[in-house]
Structures are given as structure tokens and as C-alpha cells.
């Protein structure tokens, strides 16, 4: 199962847990699995069927443009961070 680092502003939903493991072949499936355990988390991360524009998912140290479709492995390291832009 992937290792998910819970942003501090979402830890009210996870009982203070800052890192959990969850199943899922994609980021979307992972969020669905998290939602089952931590109701409300999906809506904080997603806007409909996409990640919220202000949220970027980082997998194994890299930002992903594939959002909810990003593939995961059992060893993936997943973060939800602020979306950024460069100059």
C-alpha cells in the first residue's frame, strides 16, 4: 500500500495522524480509500472529478500532472502540496 503524508490542515479528519497507508492503483483510488476511512477528506482534496486547482499531488518526490489518474505502486510516497507556478 502507498504511504500517504496527510497535510497538517487535513489532520483534523485523520485524528491527528500525519502518515497513513492506503490501497489504490491510482491517486483517485487512493483518495477513495482514504475517504472510506476519513469521511470528508475527498471533498477537501477534490473538486468533482479533479484535484482542487490549488492542490498538487507529488508521488515519489515529483509533482504529477496526471492528478487522480497518476499510477501508484505499493511503495509510492504520496504528498498533497500547494500547486505552484514558475517564471
Amino acid at each position, binding site marked *: 500500500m502507498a504511504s500517504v503524508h496527510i497535510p497538517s490542515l487535513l489532520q483534523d479528519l485523520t485524528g491527528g495522524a500525519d502518515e497513513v497507508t492506503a490501497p489504490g492503483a491510482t491517486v483517485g483510488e487512493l483518495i477513495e480509500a482514504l475517504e472510506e476511512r476519513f469521511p470528508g477528506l475527498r*471533498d477537501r*482534496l477534490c473538486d468533482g472529478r479533479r484535484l482542487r486547482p490549488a492542490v498538487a499531488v507529488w508521488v515519489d518526490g515529483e509533482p504529477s500532472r496526471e492528478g487522480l489518474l497518476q499510477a501508484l505502486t505499493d511503495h509510492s510516497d504520496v504528498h498533497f502540496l500547494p*500547486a505552484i507556478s514558475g*517564471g
Partner: protein
Amino acid sequence: MTDTKTRKYQVIGTRPIRHDGVDKVTGRARYGADIHLPGTLYGKVLRSPHAHARIRSIDTSKAEALPGVKAVATAKDQPALADKIADLGEAVMNLRDLATNVLAVGKVLYHGHAVAAVAATSLEIAEEAIALIEVDYEVLPPVLSVEAAMQPDAPLLHPTLTTRSLGQQSETPSNIASHSQIKKGDVDAGFSQSAVIVEREFKTSPVHQGYIEPHTVTAQWSEDGSLTLWLSTQGAFSVRDQIAELLKIPVSQIRVVPLEIGGGFGGKIQVYLEPVAAVLAKKAGRPVKMTMTRAEVFMGTGPTSGSTIRLKMGASQDGRLMAAQAYLAYEAGAYPGSPVGAGSMCMLAPYNIENVQIDAYDVVVNKPKAAAYRAPGATNAAFASESVIDEICERLEMDPLEFRLKNGAKEGDRRADGPVFPRIGYLETLEAAKAHPHYSAPLTRSDDSDGRKYGRGVASGFWMNYGGQSTAYASVNSDGTINLVEGSTDIGGTRASSAMQCAETLGLASEDVKPVVADTGSIGYTEVTGGSRTTFATGWACFEAAQDVKRQMTERAARLLKISPDDLDLAGGVFTSKKDSEKSIGFKEVAARLGETGGPVVGRATVQPKGVGVAFATHVVDVAVDPETGKTDILRYTAVQDVGRAIHPSYVEGQMQGGVAQGVGWALNEEYYYDDGGRLLNASFLDYRMPTCLDLPMIDTVIVEVPNPGHPFGVRGVGEVPIVPPPAAIANAIYHAIGTRMNVLPMSPREVLEATGQLD
């Protein structure tokens, strides 16, 4: 003499003449101002004289009646847009904000906010016409700082704006658009274990990207309803997509032609004039050309954010960073979207710190909407963190580079915001800085008679870099050269760096590859030239396209030699049999016989690569400060940077020097200067003081190459990180010269005198 036989690469790492060089030095290169279409009209924008006001009415009748005026536009001529976030490549933008920034709706939110526009047969008539437009304003109190904007009773820029905090919205309207947080470990515990704790507040002013070429566009509609735009932009596809969203027309009906660009630095991504020119051209039925004056560039286009940052850091007696707690509030300008999130992610990235908390606030104020500027948000943040670290080093009596070596991040370490570093070269930059003669040289002192004080400072910086989508086509000419077509605007020599990666792959000379930057109708989707991505991602596309050419050409060579393609190697421009070296044929001969072997050869590639290599830099600077005038002179500057692999070292050095030059300006002189009413008082290069060659010494560069394992040639983006360390390095140098910590940018003579108590 270079030993080409022992070099890993034949083209990469050399310094050929840039492909676009001759046209640029002879004035033949085409910029936006060079576009002249038959029947062109000239557009001009009417801008708000107020920082914050309600628009009661706009009367354009007198302007419309002026002979020579062919069209007048206000926001009513643009489609109404929903509060929708659009993903425009590298950046996301709220379309309604983008539209109302282009032409104000209901309110003006900063001095210089566009209100209306005119197209006329001459620029003079257009200027006369906008003066005839009557706007009735109800002037409102402006909000000019994050402190004022965050007060509970502050005037609101947007009555419906509430604070977003990772999927939650506050109920009460506020000028605070968002709050984000990075948290790791237990900061209280970390501080309790610290022998030295330093806590400081820092302030920075908005600064402009300062590109020498103003924004310019020419728009023309065809009778079939298609729109063509010729312009100066960092991203043709991004402009196409923004126009499509703003004007509600399909992307297939828009063609954006990117011309040469006189600098962008992040400021030429979002649109300003482009939709206005399109609306005017549609109404007039003729092409419309619009070019900003320098004052309009300052007033109407994005600077980067001013900011207030509070930072507390603690370290153990043996020099180990134990905890850091930061508060960042960045001015977004008139609409949400400051780079505070990136600032918070970059701020402490060079260091291993177990206990971290960073709270970041995006705050709207009555200033132009902030735009990206070279490592957006990171320079402000590093000014704070690298200054505090210098103070900790002083308190611990530790050498600042040794302290950084002790605490610096390396492969496998986890950043404060979470991701784990792959192979990085931060420690290598510190070692290179320490070993550089500059660091051990005695501080320059002419003599004591001039009364100046001398100091040396160091600082480091981090930027994440970006990958993104790119496309490249490579077609083989009959003379064995390659036409390389790509979609990335060439700002800093990327035609050369892309062509060189193609040439290296095919065993050709750099000049045998002819790079062309294509318009949106002629190349596949390519994201902006920004995020230090082009040599990495577009270069990767060129590498892949060349691989495609190589595969096809190998098949053609095999056919001519009557052997299997698997039996052939390509080296030095010659296909040679692995089994029989007598069987060989040159790349150029194969190219000359394409008609016999199956027709044209075109390689193509689209990429959205992972493996982005992050960037670190460490800078050393010597300054002389005149205590009487407060003026700081830069005496010597050395910039060290891990660039992964320098494709064309001259342009890597140019990026490093350019970043330092802009950082010096940000550090010492540049600022948006407002009166109490929010009117910008220094909207010219006379009063907005950018450094000139007289202000800068030769900037020495040290290229450190720790190849990025995620790229075929080891490339890391290089363009942005060199602007991150300069303000902090210079602040630290000033402190070591005069004994006063500078916590405000710019550290102008006035600020230095104020900090040293001489303006009391």
C-alpha cells in the same frame, strides 16, 4: 586544446555560436513591434487613476465620435465568465479574475487597472480618444499592505472572497485568499532543545520582472472567423488557451504566432493586451496592434509580490538546526494568486530540520495582480531564512559554509514539505564555494581613507524546477542537416540547447541542426518557457525526436548497405557495420538518397517527463558600504550552482549572471513606490532603479555538474535559482560590513541610513 576523443559528449558542453545569433545582432530578427499588416489600427488602453474605486458609469460616446476612431471596447464587449479555474499549462488561473484584470468590471482594483480601450487609425488619435472617455468613479479607500489587508475591518477588494484553506472556505469575507501550512515534527520541542534561537521579521516590496521589451500584440480576424495573434509571449499555447476561454471561441480557431521575445522572466505568461486587441479587431473589422509604454508595463502588468515574513529558527550548540517556524504573508495584488505556496516550499528546502511549521497567507491588496517572476516566491523566503541562518552562525561562531555543510540536504533526505530528494548537488555547491579563491581572499580594502566599510556574505537558494509538456519534430534535409521544429519561445538560448541535444544524439555538428520556433498551428502542444523547463523538457523532446530520426535513418542506411539495421552503429556521422567495418555510409549520403529508400524522414516526439532535477545555488558576495550615504557597492560576486549538465555552458553562465543581476537590483534598489492613495510613483526606468553595468562587477560563475539521473543528458533547469540567494547574501555582507542587520528590501541608501539610525 580539448581532447574530443576522451570527452563523453561531442556537442554537449561546447560553446557553438547560437543559431539565432546572426539575425539578432543584425536586427533582422522579428519582434512584435516589427509586425505591420495592411490596414492596421492602433489600440490604446484607458487606465484607472485610482487604486480602488467603484465604476459608476463609463461614457465612450465622445471617443466614438472622434474621427479616426474605429472601435471602442469596455468589459461589456467581453463574454461574461463564471468563477472557474482554468488549467493553463504550468499555471492555474481563475478566468473571471483574468477577464476583469484585462478590462475592469464594476470596480478598479489598482492604479493602472485597464478600464476601456480604443482602436484608431493612428496612435495619436487613439491616445486622444481615450482621454475623451468619461468614467465616473466612486473612490474607495485603498489597501496597500498585507498588514492592513488582514485587519478584520479592512476595506474588502472582493466582497465575496473568503479564505480557502485546503478545501475549506471561511464564512466571513476577507482579503486573505488562502492559508496553507507545512508542518513536520514538534517545533516547541525543537526550540526547547536549541541553544541559540533567532527570531526576525522581514519585509520586501513588489518588484517588476523588468524585461526590456514591453508587451505587444497584433490581432487579426479572418472572414472565416479565425483569429491570428502575433505577439511577445513565453507560451503561445498558453495564450491561445487563455484567449479561447476569455472570448469563448474554440482553440482551433486561434493561431498564436510567437515572435522573438525581449525578456519575460515569468511576466509574459498571463494575457493583458491580447484579448483587448482581439475584441477591438473584431469590432473594427481590421487588424489592431497594441504596444504598452514602459509606464503601462509597470502599472498594468504583474510584478512579483511584496511580502512580510516572520521567521524563528533554533540550533544546538554544536550547530545542528533543531526547529524553524515561519509566517509568510505575500501580496497577491488585486486578485488571488501570489507565489506564497512556492515560497513556503522552498524556504527551508536546503536544510535538514526535524521540526518545522510554516504558515503561508495569500493576501489581496490594491496593487497589480502578481505574476510569476523567476523562482516565484523563493527569493523573498530565502532573504529571511538565509539571513537568520547567518545570524545563527555568528552566534555560534561557526563558518557559514561549514554550518550549511553540516545541515545541508542530500540524496535521501526529506524536504520540510515532504518529498524525498533524489540525487542533488547542494553540498557540492557548498564545497565549491568554500574552495573558490573568492572565499579565502582577503576582503578588498583600498584603504581606510574613503571611510567605506567592507563585508562578505554568503547565502544559498533552492528552486524546484518543472517538467511539463513539449513537442518536437525533426526532419532530415537532403544535405544531411536537420530542421528541428519546437514550440518553446527562445528566451535564453534554448534554440541552441535543444539543437545541441538533437545534434549530440545524431552525431552531427550543432550547426547542422536548424531550430525553428513554431506557432500553435505548426507544432504540437508545448507549455510555456518557464519553470526552468525548456532545456530539460523540450530538450528531451528533441532528444527523442532525434532518436526517432536515428532509427529511421538506420533502416535506410541498412537498406542501402544491404544489411540488417541491427548490424549498424551511428557514430561521428557515419553508419558502420558492427561486423564489417568496411561496410559504412555517411549520414549525409543516406540523407541525399531518401527518395530511393522510401521518402522523407521525420522524427517526432511528445514528452511530459518525470525526473525533474531540482536546483541549488550558493553565492558569495563582497560589498563596500558608505556609512555616510548608505550606498552599497558590489565589489565581487561568485555564483556557484549545480546545473546537472551544462548543455551550452555560455548560456548557463548567462542565466546565472542574469539571475544575480536581477537579484542585486531586488536587493539594493528596486521597489514599487506608492503614495498613500495607492498611486504608483515610479513607473519609469528613471525612477525604478534597475542595476546597470556600472552597478555590477564581473559576476564569476562556477558550474557544478551533478547530473540529474532523471534526464538523458543529466540536465537540471538553471534559469530560476540564481535569483534566489542574492538579496540574502548581500544583506549578510552588509551586516558584516557595518554591523547592522538589514531586514527590509530594497536595502537602498535610505534603508541603510534608517537601519543605522542616521535618519532619526
